[in-house]
Protein backbone atom coordinates (compact mmCIF):
# COMPACT_ATOMS: atom_id res chain seq x y z
CA UNK A 1 0.00 0.00 0.00
CA UNK A 2 2.86 2.38 0.86
CA UNK A 3 4.64 1.57 -2.38
CA UNK A 4 1.47 2.12 -4.38
CA UNK A 5 0.81 5.43 -2.66
CA UNK A 6 4.39 6.47 -3.42
CA UNK A 7 3.83 5.60 -7.07
CA UNK A 8 0.55 7.52 -7.15
CA UNK A 9 2.11 10.54 -5.46
CA UNK A 10 5.03 10.48 -7.90
CA UNK A 11 2.71 10.29 -10.90
CA UNK A 12 0.69 13.18 -9.52
CA UNK A 13 3.80 15.33 -9.01
CA UNK A 14 5.02 14.50 -12.51
CA UNK A 15 1.62 15.32 -14.04
CA UNK A 16 1.66 18.79 -12.50
CA UNK A 17 5.28 19.82 -12.92
CA UNK A 18 4.74 23.59 -12.81
CA UNK A 19 2.59 23.42 -9.70
CA UNK A 20 5.08 21.10 -8.03
CA UNK A 21 7.97 23.38 -9.01
CA UNK A 22 6.27 26.45 -7.52
CA UNK A 23 5.51 24.57 -4.33
CA UNK A 24 9.11 23.46 -3.98
CA UNK A 25 10.42 26.95 -4.76
CA UNK A 26 9.00 28.42 -1.54
CA UNK A 27 10.69 25.78 0.57
CA UNK A 28 13.96 26.05 -1.38
CA UNK A 29 14.15 29.79 -0.76
CA UNK A 30 13.18 29.46 2.89
CA UNK A 31 15.62 26.67 3.69
CA UNK A 32 18.54 28.17 1.79
CA UNK A 33 17.93 31.61 3.34
CA UNK A 34 17.98 30.23 6.89
CA UNK A 35 21.10 28.16 6.33
CA UNK A 36 22.97 30.90 4.45
CA UNK A 37 22.16 33.58 7.02
CA UNK A 38 23.17 31.48 9.99
CA UNK A 39 26.33 30.19 8.27
CA UNK A 40 27.44 33.69 7.26
CA UNK A 41 26.58 35.06 10.69
CA UNK A 42 28.75 32.46 12.35
CA UNK A 43 31.51 33.17 9.84
CA UNK A 44 31.29 36.87 10.73
CA UNK A 45 31.44 36.07 14.44
CA UNK A 46 34.54 33.98 13.83
CA UNK A 47 36.10 36.73 11.72
CA UNK A 48 35.61 39.27 14.50
CA UNK A 49 37.10 36.89 17.04
CA UNK A 50 40.08 36.24 14.79
CA UNK A 51 40.70 39.94 14.28
CA UNK A 52 40.57 40.60 17.99
CA UNK A 53 42.94 37.78 18.76
CA UNK A 54 45.32 39.26 16.18
CA UNK A 55 45.52 42.31 18.46
CA UNK A 56 47.19 40.05 20.96
CA UNK A 57 45.88 37.17 22.94
CA UNK A 58 45.40 37.43 26.67
CA UNK A 59 46.44 41.03 26.49
CA UNK A 60 46.00 43.71 29.14
CA UNK A 61 46.20 47.31 27.99
CA UNK A 62 47.13 49.74 30.75
CA UNK A 63 46.51 53.45 30.23
CA UNK A 64 46.82 56.39 32.60
CA UNK A 65 43.64 58.00 33.91
CA UNK A 66 40.24 56.62 34.63
CA UNK A 67 38.36 55.17 31.79
CA UNK A 68 35.90 57.92 31.06
CA UNK A 69 35.27 57.18 27.44
CA UNK A 70 36.99 57.52 24.10
CA UNK A 71 39.59 60.29 24.04
CA UNK A 72 38.99 61.33 27.65
CA UNK A 73 40.88 58.66 29.47
CA UNK A 74 44.21 60.35 30.17
CA UNK A 75 42.80 63.46 31.74
CA UNK A 76 45.31 64.77 34.23
CA UNK A 77 46.76 61.49 35.32
CA UNK A 78 50.54 61.01 35.22
CA UNK A 79 51.89 58.84 32.39
CA UNK A 80 53.98 55.74 32.90
CA UNK A 81 57.74 55.55 32.62
CA UNK A 82 60.18 53.03 31.23
CA UNK A 83 60.90 51.90 34.77
CA UNK A 84 57.33 50.69 35.17
CA UNK A 85 57.92 48.20 32.37
CA UNK A 86 60.92 46.67 34.13
CA UNK A 87 59.06 46.61 37.44
CA UNK A 88 56.13 44.71 35.98
CA UNK A 89 58.37 42.30 34.07
CA UNK A 90 60.42 41.43 37.18
CA UNK A 91 57.84 41.57 39.95
CA UNK A 92 54.70 40.11 38.40
CA UNK A 93 54.03 36.40 37.91
CA UNK A 94 52.00 34.75 35.17
CA UNK A 95 52.99 37.16 32.41
CA UNK A 96 54.71 36.44 29.11
CA UNK A 97 55.86 39.87 28.00
CA UNK A 98 55.50 43.55 28.85
CA UNK A 99 55.94 46.27 26.25
CA UNK A 100 55.69 50.06 26.43
CA UNK A 101 53.94 51.92 23.65
CA UNK A 102 54.37 55.54 22.63
CA UNK A 103 52.57 56.47 19.49
CA UNK A 104 52.71 59.69 17.54
CA UNK A 105 51.45 60.68 14.11
CA UNK A 106 54.19 61.67 11.64
CA UNK A 107 54.87 61.99 7.95
CA UNK A 108 57.61 59.74 6.60
CA UNK A 109 59.50 60.37 3.38
CA UNK A 110 61.46 58.10 1.08
CA UNK A 111 62.86 59.47 -2.14
CA UNK A 112 60.02 61.52 -3.64
CA UNK A 113 57.22 59.76 -1.79
CA UNK A 114 55.74 60.68 1.53
CA UNK A 115 53.15 58.97 3.69
CA UNK A 116 51.21 60.07 6.73
CA UNK A 117 51.30 57.43 9.39
CA UNK A 118 52.29 56.99 13.01
CA UNK A 119 55.45 55.81 14.69
CA UNK A 120 55.36 53.49 17.68
CA UNK A 121 58.19 53.58 20.19
CA UNK A 122 58.54 50.25 21.94
CA UNK A 123 60.79 47.28 22.62
CA UNK A 124 61.25 43.82 21.16
CA UNK A 125 58.64 42.60 23.69
CA UNK A 126 56.07 44.35 21.51
CA UNK A 127 56.42 41.59 18.91
CA UNK A 128 55.09 39.16 21.50
CA UNK A 129 52.41 41.28 23.10
CA UNK A 130 50.93 42.32 19.75
CA UNK A 131 51.46 39.09 17.83
CA UNK A 132 53.77 40.58 15.21
CA UNK A 133 55.96 38.36 13.08
CA UNK A 134 58.81 39.45 10.82
CA UNK A 135 58.43 38.86 7.10
CA UNK A 136 62.12 39.70 6.57
CA UNK A 137 65.03 41.48 8.28
CA UNK A 138 65.57 41.53 12.03
CA UNK A 139 64.29 42.95 15.31
CA UNK A 140 66.10 45.59 17.40
CA UNK A 141 69.49 44.80 18.97
CA UNK A 142 69.92 45.45 22.73
CA UNK A 143 72.38 48.24 22.13
CA UNK A 144 70.00 49.89 19.66
CA UNK A 145 67.24 49.91 22.27
CA UNK A 146 69.59 51.26 24.95
CA UNK A 147 71.11 53.93 22.75
CA UNK A 148 67.93 54.94 20.97
CA UNK A 149 69.38 54.15 17.55
CA UNK A 150 67.72 55.40 14.35
CA UNK A 151 66.47 52.04 13.13
CA UNK A 152 62.92 50.96 12.33
CA UNK A 153 60.75 47.98 11.45
CA UNK A 154 57.93 48.87 9.05
CA UNK A 155 54.53 47.38 8.32
CA UNK A 156 53.31 46.11 4.95
CA UNK A 157 51.27 49.23 4.15
CA UNK A 158 54.17 51.61 4.81
CA UNK A 159 56.42 49.43 2.67
CA UNK A 160 53.90 49.44 -0.17
CA UNK A 161 53.38 53.20 -0.04
CA UNK A 162 57.08 54.09 0.13
CA UNK A 163 58.87 51.28 -1.68
CA UNK A 164 56.28 49.59 -3.84
CA UNK A 165 57.60 46.14 -4.66
CA UNK A 166 61.27 47.01 -3.95
CA UNK A 167 63.03 45.69 -0.86
CA UNK A 168 63.05 48.27 1.94
CA UNK A 169 65.79 46.59 4.00
CA UNK A 170 68.86 48.80 4.53
CA UNK A 171 67.17 51.88 3.03
CA UNK A 172 67.02 55.17 4.92
CA UNK A 173 63.62 56.74 5.41
CA UNK A 174 63.07 60.23 6.80
CA UNK A 175 60.94 60.38 9.94
CA UNK A 176 60.16 63.95 11.03
CA UNK A 177 63.66 65.49 11.03
CA UNK A 178 65.93 62.45 11.21
CA UNK A 179 66.92 59.58 8.99
CA UNK A 180 66.16 56.06 10.03
CA UNK A 181 67.38 52.74 8.64
CA UNK A 182 64.79 50.08 7.83
CA UNK A 183 66.01 46.85 9.46
CA UNK A 184 62.87 44.71 9.30
CA UNK A 185 59.55 44.20 7.56
CA UNK A 186 56.47 42.97 9.45
CA UNK A 187 54.28 40.16 8.16
CA UNK A 188 50.85 41.51 7.17
CA UNK A 189 47.93 41.18 9.61
CA UNK A 190 45.27 42.65 7.36
CA UNK A 191 42.36 44.83 8.32
CA UNK A 192 41.65 45.16 12.02
CA UNK A 193 38.47 44.70 14.01
CA UNK A 194 37.35 48.30 13.63
CA UNK A 195 38.20 48.69 9.97
CA UNK A 196 41.60 50.21 10.73
CA UNK A 197 44.68 49.16 8.81
CA UNK A 198 46.86 47.27 11.27
CA UNK A 199 49.77 47.17 8.81
CA UNK A 200 50.12 50.98 8.74
CA UNK A 201 52.84 51.02 11.44
CA UNK A 202 56.49 51.91 11.95
CA UNK A 203 58.19 50.45 15.03
CA UNK A 204 61.20 52.26 16.54
CA UNK A 205 63.09 51.70 19.81
CA UNK A 206 61.25 53.46 22.66
CA UNK A 207 64.12 55.83 23.46
CA UNK A 208 64.45 56.90 19.83
CA UNK A 209 60.84 58.06 19.76
CA UNK A 210 61.05 59.67 23.21
CA UNK A 211 64.16 61.68 22.31
CA UNK A 212 63.56 62.53 18.69
CA UNK A 213 59.79 62.60 18.24
CA UNK A 214 57.87 63.26 21.47
CA UNK A 215 60.69 64.89 23.41
CA UNK A 216 59.60 63.41 26.76
CA UNK A 217 60.16 60.24 28.74
CA UNK A 218 56.46 59.56 29.10
CA UNK A 219 55.02 56.20 28.15
CA UNK A 220 51.32 56.30 27.15
CA UNK A 221 50.41 52.67 27.18
CA UNK A 222 51.68 49.48 28.74
CA UNK A 223 50.88 46.21 27.02
CA UNK A 224 50.99 43.14 29.24
CA UNK A 225 50.48 39.75 27.66
CA UNK A 226 49.73 36.91 30.02
CA UNK A 227 50.89 33.33 29.88
CA UNK A 228 48.45 30.84 28.39
CA UNK A 229 46.16 29.56 31.13
CA UNK A 230 47.06 32.15 33.75
CA UNK A 231 44.25 33.62 35.82
CA UNK A 232 43.32 36.93 34.19
CA UNK A 233 41.60 38.35 37.26
CA UNK A 234 44.53 37.52 39.56
CA UNK A 235 47.08 39.02 37.17
CA UNK A 236 44.91 42.10 36.80
CA UNK A 237 44.62 42.45 40.58
CA UNK A 238 48.34 42.13 41.26
CA UNK A 239 49.14 44.46 38.33
CA UNK A 240 46.76 47.03 39.76
CA UNK A 241 48.30 46.64 43.22
CA UNK A 242 51.83 47.03 41.87
CA UNK A 243 50.96 50.16 39.88
CA UNK A 244 49.13 51.72 42.84
CA UNK A 245 52.29 51.29 44.94
CA UNK A 246 54.53 52.67 42.21
CA UNK A 247 52.19 55.66 41.71
CA UNK A 248 52.02 56.24 45.49
CA UNK A 249 48.25 56.01 45.77
CA UNK A 250 46.96 55.98 49.30
CA UNK A 251 44.38 53.52 50.57
CA UNK A 252 40.96 54.77 49.43
CA UNK A 253 42.31 56.80 46.50
CA UNK A 254 40.82 55.96 43.12
CA UNK A 255 43.05 54.30 40.52
CA UNK A 256 44.56 56.92 38.22
CA UNK A 257 45.05 54.34 35.47
CA UNK A 258 42.87 51.70 33.86
CA UNK A 259 43.43 48.11 32.80
CA UNK A 260 41.57 46.92 29.72
CA UNK A 261 41.26 43.22 28.95
CA UNK A 262 41.15 42.45 25.20
CA UNK A 263 39.17 39.33 25.97
CA UNK A 264 36.38 41.54 27.30
CA UNK A 265 36.33 43.46 24.02
CA UNK A 266 36.32 40.18 22.14
CA UNK A 267 33.39 38.90 24.12
CA UNK A 268 31.42 42.11 23.71
CA UNK A 269 31.98 42.19 19.95
CA UNK A 270 31.31 38.53 19.30
CA UNK A 271 28.21 38.86 21.49
CA UNK A 272 27.01 41.59 19.14
CA UNK A 273 27.61 39.54 16.01
CA UNK A 274 25.93 36.57 17.66
CA UNK A 275 22.81 38.67 18.22
CA UNK A 276 22.98 39.76 14.58
CA UNK A 277 23.21 36.12 13.52
CA UNK A 278 20.14 35.27 15.58
CA UNK A 279 18.23 38.21 14.13
CA UNK A 280 19.09 37.28 10.55
CA UNK A 281 18.23 33.67 11.31
CA UNK A 282 14.85 34.74 12.70
CA UNK A 283 14.07 36.79 9.59
CA UNK A 284 15.07 33.84 7.41
CA UNK A 285 12.93 31.51 9.54
CA UNK A 286 9.93 33.67 8.75
CA UNK A 287 10.60 33.18 5.05
CA UNK A 288 10.74 29.43 5.67
CA UNK A 289 7.38 29.62 7.40
CA UNK A 290 5.97 31.59 4.47
CA UNK A 291 7.28 28.86 2.19
CA UNK A 292 5.42 26.32 4.31
CA UNK A 293 2.21 28.29 4.11
CA UNK A 294 2.75 28.35 0.35
CA UNK A 295 2.81 24.56 0.38
CA UNK A 296 -0.35 24.41 2.45
CA UNK A 297 -2.04 26.87 0.11
CA UNK A 298 -1.09 24.94 -2.99
CA UNK A 299 -2.13 21.64 -1.42
CA UNK A 300 -5.51 23.16 -0.53
CA UNK A 301 -5.98 24.59 -4.02
CA UNK A 302 -4.92 21.34 -5.61
CA UNK A 303 -7.44 19.44 -3.50
CA UNK A 304 -10.18 21.79 -4.68
CA UNK A 305 -8.99 21.45 -8.25
CA UNK A 306 -8.79 17.73 -7.96
CA UNK A 307 -12.05 17.08 -6.15
CA UNK A 308 -13.56 15.25 -9.14
CA UNK A 309 -10.39 13.23 -9.46
CA UNK A 310 -10.66 12.26 -5.80
CA UNK A 311 -14.29 11.30 -6.41
CA UNK A 312 -13.21 9.05 -9.28
CA UNK A 313 -10.47 7.49 -7.19
CA UNK A 314 -12.92 6.80 -4.35
CA UNK A 315 -15.57 5.45 -6.80
CA UNK A 316 -13.17 2.99 -8.39
CA UNK A 317 -12.24 1.64 -5.01
CA UNK A 318 -9.60 3.80 -3.32
CA UNK A 319 -9.89 3.72 0.46
CA UNK A 320 -10.00 6.97 2.41
CA UNK A 321 -6.59 6.31 3.89
CA UNK A 322 -5.10 5.56 0.49
CA UNK A 323 -6.12 8.98 -0.79
CA UNK A 324 -4.86 10.52 2.47
CA UNK A 325 -1.54 8.74 2.17
CA UNK A 326 -1.12 9.78 -1.45
CA UNK A 327 -1.63 13.47 -0.66
CA UNK A 328 0.55 13.23 2.41
CA UNK A 329 3.38 11.63 0.46
CA UNK A 330 3.03 14.26 -2.25
CA UNK A 331 3.47 17.01 0.33
CA UNK A 332 6.35 15.32 2.13
CA UNK A 333 8.18 14.50 -1.10
CA UNK A 334 7.83 18.10 -2.30
CA UNK A 335 8.93 19.52 1.05
CA UNK A 336 11.87 17.14 1.39
CA UNK A 337 12.91 17.80 -2.21
CA UNK A 338 12.71 21.53 -1.55
CA UNK A 339 14.72 21.06 1.64
CA UNK A 340 17.49 19.13 -0.12
CA UNK A 341 17.74 21.60 -3.00
CA UNK A 342 17.73 24.40 -0.41
CA UNK A 343 20.64 22.81 1.48
CA UNK A 344 22.68 22.44 -1.71
CA UNK A 345 21.85 25.97 -2.83
CA UNK A 346 22.73 27.32 0.62
CA UNK A 347 26.12 25.59 0.49
CA UNK A 348 26.95 27.30 -2.82
CA UNK A 349 25.56 30.67 -1.70
CA UNK A 350 27.38 30.54 1.65
CA UNK A 351 30.76 29.69 0.11
CA UNK A 352 30.35 32.42 -2.51
CA UNK A 353 29.10 35.12 -0.11
CA UNK A 354 31.70 34.18 2.50
CA UNK A 355 34.37 34.90 -0.10
CA UNK A 356 32.78 38.19 -1.11
CA UNK A 357 32.35 39.28 2.51
CA UNK A 358 35.80 37.94 3.46
CA UNK A 359 34.53 35.88 6.35
CA UNK A 360 35.41 32.22 6.89
CA UNK A 361 32.93 29.56 5.66
CA UNK A 362 32.00 27.40 8.62
CA UNK A 363 29.83 24.40 7.72
CA UNK A 364 27.20 23.96 10.41
CA UNK A 365 25.65 20.49 10.29
CA UNK A 366 23.15 21.45 13.00
CA UNK A 367 21.42 24.24 11.11
CA UNK A 368 21.36 22.15 7.92
CA UNK A 369 19.65 19.25 9.71
CA UNK A 370 17.30 21.61 11.53
CA UNK A 371 16.20 23.35 8.32
CA UNK A 372 15.70 20.00 6.58
CA UNK A 373 13.69 18.61 9.47
CA UNK A 374 11.62 21.77 9.57
CA UNK A 375 10.92 21.56 5.85
CA UNK A 376 9.82 17.93 6.19
CA UNK A 377 7.67 18.84 9.20
CA UNK A 378 6.02 21.62 7.18
CA UNK A 379 5.30 19.04 4.52
CA UNK A 380 3.69 16.67 7.02
CA UNK A 381 1.69 19.29 8.90
CA UNK A 382 0.60 21.41 5.95
CA UNK A 383 0.14 18.32 3.80
CA UNK A 384 -1.98 16.53 6.38
CA UNK A 385 -4.92 18.89 6.72
CA UNK A 386 -5.70 19.37 3.03
CA UNK A 387 -5.18 15.64 2.55
CA UNK A 388 -7.63 14.79 5.32
CA UNK A 389 -10.17 17.14 3.78
CA UNK A 390 -9.69 15.44 0.43
CA UNK A 391 -9.99 11.93 1.75
CA UNK A 392 -13.13 12.63 3.77
CA UNK A 393 -15.05 13.89 0.77
CA UNK A 394 -18.16 11.96 -0.08
CA UNK A 395 -17.49 10.33 -3.46
CA UNK A 396 -20.81 11.53 -4.87
CA UNK A 397 -20.25 15.10 -3.72
CA UNK A 398 -16.76 14.94 -5.15
CA UNK A 399 -17.99 13.59 -8.49
CA UNK A 400 -20.67 16.26 -8.80
CA UNK A 401 -18.10 18.98 -8.15
CA UNK A 402 -17.65 21.25 -11.17
Amino acid at each position, binding site marked *: *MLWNSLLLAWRSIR*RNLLRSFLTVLGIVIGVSAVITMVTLGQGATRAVQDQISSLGSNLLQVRPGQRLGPGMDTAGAPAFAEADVQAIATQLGGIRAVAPEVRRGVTVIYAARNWSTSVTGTTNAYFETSNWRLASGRKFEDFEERAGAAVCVIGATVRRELFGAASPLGQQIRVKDFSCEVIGLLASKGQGAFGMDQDDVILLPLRTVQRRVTGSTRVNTLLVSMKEGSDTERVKASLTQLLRERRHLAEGDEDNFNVLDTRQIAETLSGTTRIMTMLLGAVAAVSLLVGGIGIMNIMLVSVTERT*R*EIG*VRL*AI*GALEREVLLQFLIEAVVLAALGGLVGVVLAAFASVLLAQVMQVPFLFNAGINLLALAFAAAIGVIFGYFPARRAARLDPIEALRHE
Partner: protein
Amino acid sequence: MALIRLRGVTKVYGAGPAALRALDGVDLDVEAGEFVAIMGPSGSGKSTAMNIIGCLDTPSAGEYLFRGVHVERLTRDQRARLRRRHLGFVFQGFNLLARTSAQENVELPLLYRGEGVAARHAGARAALKSVGLAGWEHHTPAELSGGQQQRVAIARALVTRPTVLLADEPTGNLDTQRSREIMDLLAALNADRGITVLIVTHEAEMAAYARRVVRFLDGRIAGDAVTAHPVDAQATAGAA
Protein backbone atom coordinates in the same frame (compact mmCIF):
# COMPACT_ATOMS: atom_id res chain seq x y z
CA MET B 1 -31.45 -14.85 -4.70
CA ALA B 2 -31.16 -11.75 -6.85
CA LEU B 3 -27.74 -10.19 -7.38
CA ILE B 4 -29.15 -6.79 -6.44
CA ARG B 5 -32.15 -6.55 -4.09
CA LEU B 6 -33.64 -3.25 -2.94
CA ARG B 7 -36.41 -3.38 -0.31
CA GLY B 8 -38.22 -0.24 0.78
CA VAL B 9 -35.19 1.89 -0.03
CA THR B 10 -35.77 5.51 0.91
CA LYS B 11 -33.33 8.40 0.61
CA VAL B 12 -34.06 11.72 2.30
CA TYR B 13 -31.84 14.77 1.83
CA GLY B 14 -31.99 17.41 4.54
CA ALA B 15 -34.35 17.43 7.53
CA GLY B 16 -37.65 18.95 8.67
CA PRO B 17 -40.26 20.41 6.31
CA ALA B 18 -37.60 21.27 3.70
CA ALA B 19 -36.46 17.64 3.50
CA LEU B 20 -36.34 16.17 0.01
CA ARG B 21 -37.45 12.55 -0.50
CA ALA B 22 -35.31 11.53 -3.45
CA LEU B 23 -36.36 7.88 -3.14
CA ASP B 24 -39.53 6.71 -1.48
CA GLY B 25 -39.80 2.99 -0.72
CA VAL B 26 -38.20 1.51 -3.83
CA ASP B 27 -38.29 -2.27 -4.32
CA LEU B 28 -36.11 -3.62 -7.14
CA ASP B 29 -34.49 -6.95 -8.02
CA VAL B 30 -31.82 -7.35 -10.66
CA GLU B 31 -30.55 -10.83 -11.56
CA ALA B 32 -26.99 -11.59 -12.64
CA GLY B 33 -26.52 -11.12 -16.39
CA GLU B 34 -29.36 -8.64 -16.90
CA PHE B 35 -29.06 -5.48 -19.02
CA VAL B 36 -31.23 -2.86 -17.34
CA ALA B 37 -31.89 0.73 -18.38
CA ILE B 38 -33.15 3.13 -15.71
CA MET B 39 -35.15 6.00 -17.17
CA GLY B 40 -37.03 8.96 -15.82
CA PRO B 41 -37.13 12.75 -15.88
CA SER B 42 -34.69 14.91 -13.93
CA GLY B 43 -35.21 14.68 -10.18
CA SER B 44 -37.08 11.39 -10.41
CA GLY B 45 -34.47 9.68 -8.22
CA LYS B 46 -32.85 7.53 -10.90
CA SER B 47 -29.34 8.81 -10.19
CA THR B 48 -29.83 8.45 -6.45
CA ALA B 49 -30.92 4.85 -6.98
CA MET B 50 -27.84 4.30 -9.14
CA ASN B 51 -25.54 5.74 -6.44
CA ILE B 52 -27.07 3.48 -3.81
CA ILE B 53 -26.79 0.43 -6.07
CA GLY B 54 -23.17 1.46 -6.77
CA CYS B 55 -22.45 1.54 -3.01
CA LEU B 56 -21.42 5.19 -3.31
CA ASP B 57 -24.35 6.23 -1.13
CA THR B 58 -26.38 4.56 1.60
CA PRO B 59 -30.18 4.54 1.97
CA SER B 60 -31.83 6.55 4.77
CA ALA B 61 -34.17 3.64 5.33
CA GLY B 62 -34.79 0.22 3.83
CA GLU B 63 -32.48 -2.63 2.87
CA TYR B 64 -30.01 -3.06 0.05
CA LEU B 65 -28.58 -6.54 -0.43
CA PHE B 66 -25.73 -7.02 -2.89
CA ARG B 67 -24.95 -10.73 -3.35
CA GLY B 68 -26.82 -11.27 -0.12
CA VAL B 69 -24.74 -8.72 1.84
CA HIS B 70 -26.51 -5.91 3.67
CA VAL B 71 -24.73 -2.90 2.11
CA GLU B 72 -26.50 -0.41 4.41
CA ARG B 73 -24.68 -1.99 7.35
CA LEU B 74 -21.18 -1.66 5.84
CA THR B 75 -18.58 0.98 6.75
CA ARG B 76 -17.09 3.40 4.24
CA ASP B 77 -13.99 1.24 3.80
CA GLN B 78 -16.02 -1.96 3.44
CA ARG B 79 -18.12 -0.33 0.73
CA ALA B 80 -14.91 0.85 -1.00
CA ARG B 81 -13.60 -2.73 -0.99
CA LEU B 82 -16.92 -3.97 -2.39
CA ARG B 83 -16.71 -1.37 -5.16
CA ARG B 84 -13.22 -2.32 -6.17
CA ARG B 85 -14.02 -6.04 -6.19
CA HIS B 86 -17.39 -6.14 -7.92
CA LEU B 87 -18.36 -2.81 -9.43
CA GLY B 88 -17.23 -0.86 -12.46
CA PHE B 89 -18.31 2.74 -13.04
CA VAL B 90 -18.75 4.72 -16.25
CA PHE B 91 -19.67 8.40 -15.91
CA GLN B 92 -21.30 10.91 -18.20
CA GLY B 93 -18.24 13.21 -18.03
CA PHE B 94 -15.76 10.32 -18.56
CA ASN B 95 -13.79 11.45 -15.46
CA LEU B 96 -10.39 10.36 -16.68
CA LEU B 97 -7.28 11.74 -14.97
CA ALA B 98 -6.00 14.64 -17.05
CA ARG B 99 -2.46 14.59 -18.48
CA THR B 100 -2.35 10.87 -17.75
CA SER B 101 -2.01 8.22 -20.46
CA ALA B 102 -4.89 5.86 -21.26
CA GLN B 103 -2.70 3.04 -19.98
CA GLU B 104 -2.17 4.67 -16.57
CA ASN B 105 -5.84 5.62 -16.29
CA VAL B 106 -6.90 2.03 -16.87
CA GLU B 107 -4.22 0.70 -14.50
CA LEU B 108 -5.50 2.82 -11.61
CA PRO B 109 -8.15 0.41 -10.22
CA LEU B 110 -5.62 -2.43 -10.37
CA LEU B 111 -3.18 -0.26 -8.44
CA TYR B 112 -5.75 0.20 -5.67
CA ARG B 113 -6.33 -3.55 -5.67
CA GLY B 114 -2.61 -4.04 -5.03
CA GLU B 115 -1.75 -5.81 -8.32
CA GLY B 116 1.90 -6.01 -9.39
CA VAL B 117 3.45 -4.10 -12.30
CA ALA B 118 3.23 -6.97 -14.80
CA ALA B 119 -0.42 -7.76 -13.97
CA ARG B 120 -1.38 -4.07 -14.19
CA HIS B 121 0.32 -3.68 -17.51
CA ALA B 122 -1.16 -6.77 -19.09
CA GLY B 123 -4.62 -6.13 -17.61
CA ALA B 124 -4.75 -2.55 -18.88
CA ARG B 125 -3.57 -3.51 -22.38
CA ALA B 126 -6.14 -6.28 -22.59
CA ALA B 127 -8.94 -3.99 -21.38
CA LEU B 128 -8.00 -1.27 -23.89
CA LYS B 129 -7.89 -3.88 -26.66
CA SER B 130 -11.35 -5.16 -25.71
CA VAL B 131 -12.82 -1.65 -26.20
CA GLY B 132 -11.04 -1.28 -29.54
CA LEU B 133 -8.26 1.06 -28.39
CA ALA B 134 -5.21 -1.16 -28.97
CA GLY B 135 -2.35 1.15 -29.97
CA TRP B 136 -3.78 4.17 -28.13
CA GLU B 137 -2.22 3.25 -24.77
CA HIS B 138 0.08 6.26 -24.52
CA HIS B 139 -2.37 8.95 -25.54
CA THR B 140 -3.67 11.34 -22.88
CA PRO B 141 -7.40 12.19 -22.66
CA ALA B 142 -6.76 15.54 -24.40
CA GLU B 143 -5.48 13.64 -27.42
CA LEU B 144 -8.57 11.40 -27.64
CA SER B 145 -12.07 12.08 -28.99
CA GLY B 146 -15.09 11.98 -26.65
CA GLY B 147 -16.05 8.51 -27.84
CA GLN B 148 -12.50 7.29 -27.33
CA GLN B 149 -12.38 8.83 -23.86
CA GLN B 150 -15.57 7.01 -22.92
CA ARG B 151 -14.04 3.78 -24.25
CA VAL B 152 -11.02 4.35 -22.00
CA ALA B 153 -13.42 4.90 -19.08
CA ILE B 154 -15.20 1.63 -19.95
CA ALA B 155 -11.84 -0.13 -20.14
CA ARG B 156 -11.04 1.28 -16.69
CA ALA B 157 -14.35 -0.10 -15.38
CA LEU B 158 -13.72 -3.48 -17.03
CA VAL B 159 -10.13 -3.99 -16.01
CA THR B 160 -11.06 -5.41 -12.61
CA ARG B 161 -13.47 -7.94 -14.23
CA PRO B 162 -16.45 -6.56 -12.29
CA THR B 163 -19.72 -8.39 -11.65
CA VAL B 164 -21.74 -5.26 -12.38
CA LEU B 165 -21.07 -2.36 -14.71
CA LEU B 166 -22.87 0.85 -13.72
CA ALA B 167 -23.13 3.62 -16.29
CA ASP B 168 -24.68 6.97 -15.38
CA GLU B 169 -25.69 8.73 -18.64
CA PRO B 170 -22.75 7.18 -20.50
CA THR B 171 -23.79 8.76 -23.81
CA GLY B 172 -24.90 12.13 -22.41
CA ASN B 173 -21.84 13.94 -23.78
CA LEU B 174 -21.62 12.14 -27.13
CA ASP B 175 -23.21 12.57 -30.57
CA THR B 176 -25.63 9.93 -31.84
CA GLN B 177 -23.06 8.00 -33.84
CA ARG B 178 -20.62 7.74 -30.90
CA SER B 179 -23.52 7.00 -28.53
CA ARG B 180 -24.55 4.01 -30.63
CA GLU B 181 -20.98 2.70 -30.66
CA ILE B 182 -20.78 2.93 -26.88
CA MET B 183 -24.17 1.22 -26.45
CA ASP B 184 -23.10 -1.54 -28.85
CA LEU B 185 -20.01 -2.05 -26.77
CA LEU B 186 -22.02 -2.27 -23.53
CA ALA B 187 -24.53 -4.65 -25.11
CA ALA B 188 -21.69 -6.85 -26.40
CA LEU B 189 -20.07 -6.96 -22.95
CA ASN B 190 -23.41 -8.01 -21.49
CA ALA B 191 -24.02 -10.63 -24.15
CA ASP B 192 -20.48 -12.04 -24.49
CA ARG B 193 -19.12 -11.82 -20.97
CA GLY B 194 -22.32 -12.01 -18.95
CA ILE B 195 -21.54 -8.79 -17.12
CA THR B 196 -24.62 -7.32 -15.47
CA VAL B 197 -25.09 -3.82 -16.93
CA LEU B 198 -27.16 -1.01 -15.44
CA ILE B 199 -27.40 2.27 -17.30
CA VAL B 200 -29.15 5.50 -16.40
CA THR B 201 -30.37 7.40 -19.45
CA HIS B 202 -33.18 9.67 -20.55
CA GLU B 203 -32.83 8.84 -24.25
CA ALA B 204 -35.33 6.21 -25.37
CA GLU B 205 -33.08 5.18 -28.24
CA MET B 206 -30.28 4.26 -25.86
CA ALA B 207 -32.64 2.58 -23.39
CA ALA B 208 -33.82 0.39 -26.29
CA TYR B 209 -30.50 -1.45 -26.22
CA ALA B 210 -31.40 -2.89 -22.81
CA ARG B 211 -33.57 -5.96 -22.26
CA ARG B 212 -35.43 -4.34 -19.38
CA VAL B 213 -36.40 -0.73 -18.74
CA VAL B 214 -37.21 0.57 -15.24
CA ARG B 215 -38.96 3.96 -15.13
CA PHE B 216 -38.66 6.28 -12.12
CA LEU B 217 -41.08 9.06 -11.24
CA ASP B 218 -41.01 11.18 -8.08
CA GLY B 219 -38.79 8.75 -6.19
CA ARG B 220 -40.90 5.67 -6.98
CA ILE B 221 -40.78 3.01 -9.65
CA ALA B 222 -43.48 3.88 -12.18
CA GLY B 223 -42.85 1.11 -14.66
CA ASP B 224 -40.76 -2.03 -15.08
CA ALA B 225 -40.97 -3.80 -18.43
CA VAL B 226 -39.03 -6.16 -20.63
CA THR B 227 -38.20 -4.46 -23.95
CA ALA B 228 -40.34 -5.80 -26.76
CA HIS B 229 -37.69 -5.69 -29.44
CA PRO B 230 -34.24 -5.11 -28.05
CA VAL B 231 -31.93 -3.59 -30.64
CA ASP B 232 -29.73 -6.24 -32.19
CA ALA B 233 -26.27 -5.18 -31.22
CA GLN B 234 -24.66 -6.99 -34.14
CA ALA B 235 -27.04 -5.47 -36.68
CA THR B 236 -26.44 -1.91 -35.47
CA ALA B 237 -22.70 -2.45 -35.35
CA GLY B 238 -22.82 -3.69 -38.95
CA ALA B 239 -24.86 -0.68 -40.06
CA ALA B 240 -22.49 1.82 -38.41
